[in-house]
Structures are given as structure tokens and as C-alpha cells.
């Protein structure tokens, strides 16, 4: 479909479009001067709907005094997904400097919990390097409801380069460290009190812009009545226009204590019937263009109605410079929607259905799902989700978006559609939440048959379930069950050339590898990889499979092949930008083995540490334990017994969580015995009672094991650096050590951290 590609592109363009100040705007030179002049880290424009936040930002952007470039993101309800959010931010920055943020953008789909490290930190470095003076505008920030996004913006603010300023407009105070920014004088705040229209500003709006020709006493009455609330004034103005005797109406309005929103009806009543109807019906749309509106109203005159609405100052905001896309001013849209639900409740679901159909035909899955869900067509929503979740989760990394779709479905719909249970289960795999995977696996198993196609490479539901079960067992460290489930998955895909069979073979190979069946593992991995390579299939399964295969070859001294396989995995990771994915852990482990074999012990050290980090992040216990054991053996070879012991103990802790760690159990035992580690000692027997650490000290000890400075630890715990120092001295004394590094090593030996 020709429009398919452009639909998403149009959406991005409208979200990044810098709104141009409208004709007849009331100039606010003092406020603009503050925004231009005070070069603080953050500009926060915080006021309820309709106080002119966006208008002020666009006036500032257009002002002659402001010479910096603006990266502008208009947020909406779908942007609480960190991947999407940062995708838009980078796209906005690239509007200024096309090279900016390429690597951040590439790392985004697989960054997951490493959002700050993988995306924000590199982006900050690039911003510094670019030396480009710019303002990042985040409009409607109150629509963001995601802790990871707030955390990442807080991080950006803490490390904000001097050449960058952030401007946030929001209806409520955002959950950012505002208090410390205020205390440091790093924030310019504009709130409702400053946005309030004065009498003279109200006069400009009512008489110059809207041409009402009111006397100064009437302007004053309206200003007083609306308390200078811009949208209130504008709504009042529209009501005034609707009355023959304007003076009488102003008096009545001023003396009335009705909510200003209640005047919407009078405004609507004053419009031609067709326009009124058009406004109400299209109010369910987040953003609209004429063809979309026509699909809803079936009247065919949307272009004319939009034009008329804009001319009548009916709160229509253009979203692009061609005036193809619009949205209603938020307040006006809210009022219209409420009025629609009140006066035509029977229409609402049908309108949402029509909107969903239009968006589906134009490949905007997101809006389609939002509208079918709003229409309470939950089965249809389920079908759309079943069809599209894989692309979002596995290719775009927009995991939170899919979670949001599923969360808005009634629980019983989710739990009776096995395809949706599997979607939720795979998401839990990616998040490393073992219990949740199990929960949705059992739900999938007890579901009635899927109400529609699987939309998967698996040829049957049983096969898809077996594949997830194998993946879960590998994740939580149950080698026997992984082997069994993978065997089942292979058996359920008898067609030796099918992709599902190849993916199952790779799981089987991984299970056999951890079971110590090297020869069989090699064969299964090779079979799966050959097939997937032939199809140019580049998924997590291939990357993990190459990594295991490389490790097997390295451990059996077939270094040449091992090098080829590891190189292939690394090129895939590189080209596909999956460096931060947990499935890259086996390849990193293999690289460690190869470097160790080649005598580059420092390089191997780094590779094993990286493998452990990646595996730990994704909750992949077997990969984590394997990396730790290999690392421990390497450290022993480097004659750093303390480090080796500490790593072996960490591996021990991981293995203890595994229901069946397979061959790793024996491997670790051998490693422990060469390191003279006895059977595990409990911390109680190691520490005299009077030297036990307090809760606080344990917390600090855990933070001492990180890269945080003492000052950073202090701010993390809301205590002064001196208090941290004091606690640290007590910790050192109790552990019988003299510095931080020793304390961490000792604490690891004691199993305290």
C-alpha cells in the first residue's frame, strides 16, 4: 500500500513539527525575554490546560532574539514507552544535526534496562562534541507516565552539556529532581500566575485578535471572571460572539458562577449544524486529516469543515506546515468528547470503530488498537495485537507499548487467547522476569484454541509453547527441562527445512551444550544455524546460537572455526546494533575464550566481564554462571586468587538459584577446589556478632561495590558525603580491611553482597 510507509512518517513529522505562532497572537515580550535571557539548564512551563504554554514556547522559538536551534517533541499518550520517547527525541535532534544520535538510535531497540548507559550517555557525549547550541522542547510532558523515562531525563539534566537547554511544558510538576534544580538556581519556571493574561493582554486578544469590539470595562470583567486564563477568555469570546447583545451577555457571564467549560454548549449551538456535528464526531481523534474525518462523518466535506473551524477560532491546532493534519486544543477536545458522550452516547463506539478501520487501512496499528480498545471490541484488539506484537517487541524494541496494549485489555480476554499469553510470556523473557514467564506459559497451556492465525513461524500452538518453555528453562537454569522442551519443539516441527525447526534446534543445541553433550550440541546448533543463515534470518536466536557454537569450538581447540563463528556473531551484533542485548552474552563469552587462548588475558578479562553483565541484565542464569566461572579460572591463571574466589562465589550464588545447572555444577566444583574454597560458609559463622553490619552499612557496602563515588552514594541515599565516609570507616573496621576495593572483595567472600 502506497500510504503505508508515509503514515508513520507523517506521524513523526507532526510530532516534531514546531508550531508556528498563530496570526493574532497576543505578544508576551517579558516572558519571551526571560526564556531567551536566563540560560539555565531547565525551563519548566507548568500550568493547567489552556494557559498558553505551547503558544509561549512557539512565540519564543519564533522571536528574533532567540538564535538557537530547537528540537521539538510534542508528546502524546502513546509516548510512555522509553524506546519511542527517545526515538522521537533523537529524531528531533537529527532535524538540527543529521549525524547526531545515530548510535543512540541504533542501540535503542535492545537497550532495555540499560537505557541510560546505552542511549542517553552516548547521546550526551555526542551533544557535547557537536557544540551545537540548541534547545530541546518536550511539550505535554504530563502525558509521560514511565519511571524509566523520568529517570533518563533526570540523568540528562544532571549531565546536561552547556550548549543544551531543556524546556518542558506540562500540566503538572514532572517527577524530576526539581527541588535540587531550584536550589541550584538551574531552573527557569513559568507558572499559571505568570501566564495569566493581564487586562491589556486580554484586550489585545478580545478586541484585536478576535475583533469583538468590547469596551475596557467589559474586557476587565471578562479578565476578572476568567482570571486571565487564555482558553477561558477565548471560550468566553466565542460565547460573546454567539449573542446579539454582547454587553448584556458579558454582564451575565461575569455575574455567573458556572464553570467556563459549561459555555461550550452555547459556542456549539452558535455553529452551523454541520460544523457542530463535525466537531463532536471528530473529537474522538488524537489527530486528524480530512480523509480520516470523512471516514468518521461519512459526509465528504471534512476539508471544508476543518477550514471553517479554523477560521472560527475553534481551537484547531495545525500539526504541519501544509495544514493537512490538525488536532483540537486539548481542553476543547476534552470538552467536545464529554459533550459527545453526553449527547450521543450511542455514537461513540461506532465512531471509534470507523477510526480504527481507517488507521488499520493506513497501517497505523497503534491508533487502530487504541480505537478498537476504546470501542470495547476487545477480540478485534486481541487479533491486531496477536498480528503485530512480534514486530514491535523483537524489531523495534517497543516492549512497553505492547505491554500497554495488553494491559488495556480485560484480563479474561488476555488469559483466554493463547497468542496473547505467549506475547506476554516472551516480553517477560526479554525483561528477565522468570516467574512471569511461567505464569503466562501456564495460562497459554490452559487456553482454548487460538481464535485466529498464530502469526508466527511455529506451525502449531503446541510448538510455540514448547519453544517458549525451552527458552524459559534455559533462562532460569533448568537444563533437563530445557532439553526436554526443546526436543519436543523440534519434534513438533517435522519439516526439516522450516524456520521454526531451525530455531528449536538452536534451543536444543544450547540445552545440550549446558548438559555437557558437546558433540550433539554442536550438531544441533550447526543444523539450526545453517538453515537460518540460508534465510538471512538475523534474530536473537542466531546470535545466541553462533555464540554457543563458537564457545564449543573454542573449548575443543578448534580455534579457527571458533574465530569464524565469533566473528560472524559480532558482525551481526554490530550491523544489527544488538550490542546491549542479553543474547550477545554467549558470543562475548566465546570471544573471552579465544582471547585467553591467544594469550590476551586482559582482553579476555574484559570480554568475560561483559558477558556476565549482559547475561545478568537479561536474567540468563546459565550464561551468567558460565561467564563467571570462565572469568574465575582466568583470574586464577593471572594469579589474582582473591578476584578468582570472589567470582567463583558469585557463580555459586547464581547456580544455587538454578533448578538444574547441568555441566556447570561440576565445572564450578572443580574451579572451587583449585581455589581451595571449602563448602559454602554462611556469613553468620564468619563474622563475630559484635561486628555485624547494620542495614544502613549493608546498603552502603552494596553501593561501594558499584562505580559510584562517595558523594554520589550520599546523594543516592540522601545523606551527606561525610556520613557516607563515617559509615565506610565503620564498614572497613568491621571487615578488617583498609580500603574500598578490599572491602568489596571481602564482602563478596563473605557473601554479604
Amino acid at each position: 500500500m502506497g500510504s503505508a510507509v508515509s503514515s508513520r512518517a507523517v506521524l513523526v513529522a507532526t510530532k516534531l513539527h514546531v508550531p508556528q505562532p498563530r496570526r493574532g497572537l497576543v505578544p508576551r515580550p517579558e516572558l519571551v525575554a526571560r526564556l531567551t535571557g536566563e540560560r539555565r539548564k531547565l525551563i519548566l512551563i507548568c500550568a493547567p490546560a489552556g494557559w498558553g504554554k505551547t503558544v509561549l514556547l512557539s512565540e519564543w522559538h519564533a522571536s528574533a532574539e532567540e538564535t538557537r536551534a530547537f528540537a521539538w517533541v510534542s508528546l502524546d499518550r502513546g509516548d510512555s514507552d522509553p524506546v519511542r520517547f527517545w526515538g522521537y527525541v533523537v529524531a528531533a535532534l537529527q532535524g538540527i544535526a543529521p549525524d547526531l544520535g545515530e548510535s543512540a538510535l541504533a542501540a535503542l531497540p535492545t537497550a532495555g534496562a540499560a537505557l541510560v548507559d546505552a542511549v542517553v550517555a552516548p547521546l550526551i557525549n555526542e551533544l557535547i562534541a557537536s557544540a551545537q547550541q540548541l534547545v530541546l522542547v518536550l511539550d505535554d510532558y504530563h502525558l509521560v507516565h514511565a519511571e524509566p523515562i523520568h529517570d533518563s531525563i533526570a540523568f540528562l539534566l544532571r549531565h546536561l552539556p552547556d550548549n543544551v537547554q531543556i524546556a518542558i511544558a506540562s500540566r503538572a510538576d514532572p517527577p524530576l529532581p526539581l527541588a535540587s534544580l531550584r536550589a541550584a538556581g538551574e531552573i527557569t519556571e513559568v507558572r499559571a500566575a505568570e501566564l495569566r493574561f493581564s487586562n491589556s493582554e486580554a484586550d489585545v486578544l478580545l478586541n484585536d485578535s478576535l475583533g469583538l469590539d468590547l469596551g475596557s470595562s467589559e474586557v476587565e470583567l471578562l479578565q476578572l471572571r476568567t482570571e486571565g486564563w487564555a482558553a477561558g477568555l477565548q471560550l468566553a469570546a466565542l460565547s460573546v460572539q454567539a449573542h446579539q447583545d454582547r454587553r448584556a451577555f458579558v454582564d451575565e457571564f461575569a455575574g455567573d458562577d458556572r464553570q467556563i467549560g459549561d459555555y461550550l454548549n452555547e459556542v456549539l449551538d452558535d455553529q452551523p449544524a454541520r460544523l457542530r456535528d463535525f466537531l463532536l464526531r471528530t473529537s474522538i481523534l488524537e489527530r486528524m486529516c480530512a480523509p480520516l474525518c470523512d471516514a468518521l462523518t461519512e459526509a465528504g466535506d471534512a476539508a471544508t469543515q476543518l477550514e471553517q473551524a479554523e477560521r472560527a477560532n475553534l481551537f484547531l491546532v495545525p500539526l504541519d506546515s501544509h495544514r493537512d493534519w490538525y488536532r483540537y486544543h486539548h481542553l476543547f477536545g476534552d470538552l467536545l468528547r464529554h459533550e459527545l458522550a453526553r449527547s450521543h452516547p450511542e455514537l461513540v463506539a461506532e465512531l471509534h470503530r470507523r477510526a480504527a478501520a481507517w488507521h488499520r487501512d493506513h497501517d497505523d496499528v497503534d491508533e487502530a488498537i487504541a480505537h478498537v480498545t476504546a470501542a470495547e471490541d476487545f477480540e478485534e484488539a486481541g487479533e491486531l495485537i496477536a498480528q503485530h506484537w512480534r514486530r514491535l517487541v523483537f524489531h523495534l524494541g517497543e516492549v512497553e507499548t505492547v505491554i500497554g496494549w495488553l494491559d488495556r485489555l480485560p484480563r479474561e480476554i488476555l488469559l483466554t487467547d493463547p497468542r496473547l499469553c505467549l506475547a506476554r510470556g516472551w516480553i517477560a523473557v526479554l525483561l528477565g522476569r522468570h516467574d512471569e514467564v511461567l505464569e503466562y506459559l501456564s495460562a497459554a497451556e490452559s487456553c482454548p484454541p487460538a481464535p485466529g492465525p498464530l502469526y508466527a513461524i511455529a506451525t502449531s500452538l503446541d510448538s510455540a509453547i514448547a519453544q517458549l518453555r525451552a527458552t524459559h528453562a534455559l533462562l532460569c537454569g533448568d537444563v533437563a527441562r530445557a532439553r526436554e522442551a526443546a526436543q519436543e519443539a523440534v519434534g513438533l516441527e517435522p519439516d526439516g527445512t522450516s524456520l521454526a525447526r531451525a530455531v528449536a534446534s538452536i534451543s536444543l543445541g544450547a540445552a545440550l551444550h549446558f548438559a555437557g553433550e558437546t558433540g550433539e550440541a554442536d550438531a544441533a546448533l550447526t543444523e539450526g544455524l545453517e538453515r537460518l543463515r540460508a534465510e538471512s534470518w538475523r534474530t536473537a536466536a542466531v546470535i545466541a546460537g553462533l555464540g554457543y557454537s563458537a564457545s564449543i569450538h573454542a573449548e575443543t581447540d578448534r580455534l579457527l572455526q571458533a574465530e569464524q563463528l565469533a566473528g560472524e556473531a559480532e558482525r551481526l551484533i554490530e550491523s544489527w546494533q544488538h550490542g546491549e542485548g542479553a543474547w550477545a552474552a554467549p558470543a562475548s563469552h566465546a570471544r573471552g575464550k579465544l582471547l585467553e587462548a591467544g594469550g590476551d588475558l586482559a582482553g579476555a578479562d574484559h570480554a568475560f566481564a561483559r558477558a556476565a553483565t549482559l547475561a545478568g541484565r537479561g536474567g540468563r542464569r546459565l550464561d551468567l554462571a558460565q561467564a563467571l566461572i570462565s572469568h574465575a579460572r582466568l583470574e586464577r591463571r593471572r594469579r589474582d586468587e582473591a578476584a578468582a574466589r570472589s567470582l567463583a562465589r558469585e557463580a555459586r550464588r547464581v547456580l544455587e538459584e538454578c533448578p538444574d545447572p547441568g555441566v556447570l555444577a561440576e565445572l564450578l566444583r572443580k574451579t572451587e577446589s583449585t581455589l581451595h574454597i571449602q563448602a559454602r560458609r554462611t556469613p553468620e559463622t564468619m563474622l563475630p556478632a559484635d561486628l555485624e553490619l547494620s542495614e544502613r552499612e549493608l546498603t552502603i557496602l552494596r553501593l561501594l561495590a558499584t562505580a559510584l563515588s562517595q558523594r554520589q552514594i550520599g546523594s543516592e541515599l540522601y545523606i551527606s558525603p561525610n556520613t557516607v565516609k563515617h559509615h565506610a570507616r565503620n564498614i572497613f573496621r568491621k571487615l578488617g580491611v583498609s580500603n574500598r576495593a578490599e572491602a568489596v572483595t571481602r564482602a563478596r567472600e563473605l557473601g554479604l553482597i
Partner: protein
Amino acid sequence: MNEHATKPGRYRVVVRGRMGDTLAGVFGELELECRDGTTALTGTFIDQAQLHGLLDRLRDLGIQLVSVNPLD
């Protein structure tokens, strides 16, 4: 966690101004009472999140909050 955060409860939310027919319809699920230039909206909320949802809706409609009180 405060267990009240997850328990249903009755609340009265008082806002400035009178609610006319248009807005009264919007909050149809609540009891509305206008007095002395204020409107009290009273009802049972399944949890605090639902109460916050109402406060957000009031804010988004440009309605000014006077007070929020639990009733039981």
C-alpha cells in the same frame, strides 16, 4: 505501602464554581451538589488511582480544586 491506597473509599471533592448541564453530565457517576459558588462531587472510588483520575480530569477541564476529603 499504605493499604488505603488500594482500598475503595468515599470521597468528597469540592471545586470552585457551579457545574452546569454540560459538565454535570461529564461527572454523571458522582453526586453533585452546588452551594455558595462551589460544587461538591461525592462518590465511591475503587482506589486512589481512580481518585487521581478524577482530579486529573478536573484539572484538564480548567476546573479549580478547593478540597478533597475522605468521608469514612
